[in-house]
């Protein structure tokens, strides 16, 4: 809280890491070749895994349904390539755990034409039909969270959505996928917004774009369809503005209450690439087979923005684009929130927005940590106005309960701003991530114990 407020049109606090986008932001999206074998984990979104509907040895056509949604909070999966289902079994994932999935062998000489499905007409379809269409297309948040979009779009009873916010912020350094999508796929974006306005019942749509993508904002403004209530808002560059809550505050000037969703303040936020995907797929009734990914970082030879089939193994991607000899760390996502990869045999998933390769030069091994000197940098960086400094001390002594009740630990969305600024190199957000996991684990255990007690009681009564 400063006595001077320089944060007009944005949220408070936040950080300004180097943008590192110059090398890829001018490069048009290019189609990536098909890998000989595609690996499709069934759990690549938040929620229940998809249920496989094909059998081993079956020939499938590109765009064909491979797995149906495993429940309401789940989406189906479509074949990213024409080929044959070679194996159904365990596939490696980024978490290090194996999970059920499909190995799909591509037909090398197929035309790779995509199957046409049942179209969803934006003018005649009901909101329910559109929601169903979005789920059927296998659409999840492409910004990185991979939360099923149809669940997010369902406005709860008693709430109304006033504003549809399209997230074109892309505040992570290096990433330029949304930037390119906005420059190249404006028709798809506007078509997507048309569907989304109908689903949410919002009166208007606002596309939020940071000032380092003025060309994208100009481009969209120039092509705005006259019949849709869409506006483009340019925001000052600041991380983590692409976080849902921060973006709502930047655009509406309202805060999303703790533990609540943006709908509390009448907003629904959808990523711009997700919007484009909806606008592109629904008129054809197709499902997601590929996505735009920025491949960048100091260790990459052919940097760029590529349209890559979902399920392409990381190794195939890196071998194709060429990497530096001194390759040391590979991340999926941006450098602030992306996950380091331990195994190159994992596939690209729907939520992969970027692949970054850092070499020995950029990766600092054996970082020396110092005691907290109470410089207040983390307090000044935290977009949620939490106290990372104090929480770090508590986390070290595993005082998780106090962190939850007194310090709003569970509000933390792990943007990493605190760790980024800490001069003592204290792994603050890493502590919080661990603390949150422990708290969730304990809550789950408590719930289970309570359920068991209940069951025991019933058994006794019955006996």
């Amino acid at each position, binding site marked *: *809280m*400063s*006595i001077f407020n320089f944060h007009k049109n944005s*949220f*408070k606090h936040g950080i300004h*890491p180097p943008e590192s986008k110059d090398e890829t932001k001018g490069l048009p999206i290019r189609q990536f070749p098909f890998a000989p074998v595609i690996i499709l984990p069934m759990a690549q979104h938040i929620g229940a895994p998809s249920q496989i509907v094909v059998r081993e040895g079956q020939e499938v056509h590109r765009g064909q349904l491979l797995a149906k949604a495993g429940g309401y909070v789940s989406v189906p999966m479509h074949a990213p390539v024409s080929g044959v289902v070679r194996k159904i079994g365990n596939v490696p994932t980024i978490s290090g755990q194996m999970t059920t999935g499909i190995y799909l062998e591509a037909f090398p000489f197929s035309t790779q034409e995509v199957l046409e499905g049942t179209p969803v007409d934006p003018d005649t379809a009901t909101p329910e039909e559109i929601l169903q269409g979005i789920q059927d297309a296998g659409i999840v948040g492409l910004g990185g969270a991979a939360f099923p979009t149809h669940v997010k779009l369902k406005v709860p009873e008693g709430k109304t959505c006033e504003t549809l916010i399209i997230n074109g912020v892309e505040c992570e*350094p290096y990433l330029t996928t949304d930037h390119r999508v906005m420059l190249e796929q404006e028709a798809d974006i506007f078509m997507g917004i048309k569907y989304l306005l109908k689903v949410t019942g919002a009166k208007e749509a606002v596309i939020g774009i940071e000032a380092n993508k003025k060309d994208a904002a100009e481009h969209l403004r120039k092509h705005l369809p006259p019949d849709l209530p869409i506006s483009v808002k340019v925001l000052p560059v600041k991380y983590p503005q692409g976080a849902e*809550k921060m973006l709502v*505050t930047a655009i509406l000037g309202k*805060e*999303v*209450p*703790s533990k*609540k969703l943006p709908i509390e303040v009448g907003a629904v936020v959808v990523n711009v690439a997700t919007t484009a995907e909806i606008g592109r797929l629904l008129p054809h009734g197709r499902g997601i087979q590929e996505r735009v990914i920025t491949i960048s970082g100091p260790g990459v030879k052919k940097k760029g923005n590529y349209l890559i089939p979902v399920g392409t193994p990381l*190794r195939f991607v*890196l*071998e194709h684009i060429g990497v530096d000899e001194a*390759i*040391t*760390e*590979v991340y999926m*996502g941006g*450098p*602030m*929130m*992306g996950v*380091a*990869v*331990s195994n*190159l045999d994992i596939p690209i998933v729907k939520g992969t927005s970027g692949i*970054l390769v*850092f070499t020995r030069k950029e*990766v*600092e091994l054996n970082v020396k940590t*110092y005691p907290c*000197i*109470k*410089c*207040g940098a983390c*307090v000044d960086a935290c*977009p*949620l*106005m*939490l*106290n990372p400094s104090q929480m770090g001390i*508590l986390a070290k002594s595993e005082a998780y309960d106090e962190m939850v009740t*007194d*310090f*709003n630990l569970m*509000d933390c969305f*792990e943007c*990493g701003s605190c760790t*980024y*600024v*800490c*001069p*003592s190199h204290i792994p603050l*957000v*890493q502590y919080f*991530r661990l603390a949150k996991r422990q708290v969730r684990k304990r809550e789950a255990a408590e719930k289970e114990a309570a359920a068991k007690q209940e069951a025991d009681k019933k058994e006794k009564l019955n006996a």
Partner: protein
Amino acid sequence: MLKKTLHISSSPHITKGRSTDQIMKNVVWALLPVAGFSVWSFGWNALLVIATATLASVLTEHVLCRLSKKETTVNDYSAVITGLLLGLTLPPTFPLWMAFIGGVVGIALGKYIFGGLGYNVFNPALVARAFLQAAFPVAITTWHPALLDDRFTTIASSVFTWPFMAPQYDVISGATPLAAFKFDGVVTPTMELAFGQISGSTGETCAVIIILGGLYLIARGMMSWRIPAAVLLSAFLLSGALYMINSEVYPSPVFMLFSGGLMLGAVYMATDMVSSPITPAGLWVYGAIIGILTIVIRVWGGLSEGVMYAILLANAISPHIDRVIKNRVYGTNRKMKVA
């Protein structure tokens, strides 16, 4: 085929690249010109005093770490700062054995017993200074004139006083501008204050160099600009108000800002991150307390200088400032908790 063992780490994978030891080192760099000017104006005496205090601090830190079987923390440079700052607040002909004790006390009692770097409640250099003020009231208020001709040829006999002996002074002591004003009503011209042609503690005399060092640290994002701003602004406003009421009795606000240790204290002592509040608004309050207390002590107290006690008091209040002035947590009505 790409075959490589990958390193893994938890995000974020980039950092601002400004570490605690770098901050400390830069404070040392910024203090060196201050010490250099001090040597230029007070000669070898100042060099000996500053060097002794610094050596004592670093040595104490190292020995204490060894005694408690920990890796030495000397290389984080914070002990160097404590020693330098202590040396810069002592009179130029201060006995070396007293300066040495000061250095030991600053680190041992000012920092180490609290748990070392990051845990000290008070600025260690000022703890040492306050200890010396209480233990050796005469020696610490015996000043030496600046720019003497023989400053690079002779060393004052008081400097080499035997341990536990009272020093003998061979030069007629020169009153500091503050003492001259308080006890004799003499006002020193501002230009002399700004460029350090005055007597005083070794490092407090040249306001310009102190300000330049502070600006360097602020520009590099290694010092809060709010603290010096709040200290100087509040001191200026209060002394200005007094001056407006009666310019015969009270000195001008400009004199107040540029005399004594206020500038050194505001820029280098009050800004110790560990012993100052954590929120920007808290820093303003903290700074204002220091500025006001300094003027109050100077004008109504028995001492001619009040910066040291003002900062120490504000250090003590600092955790309470954090408890009162907090950020409101996003999306709640609740204030950020400070334990």
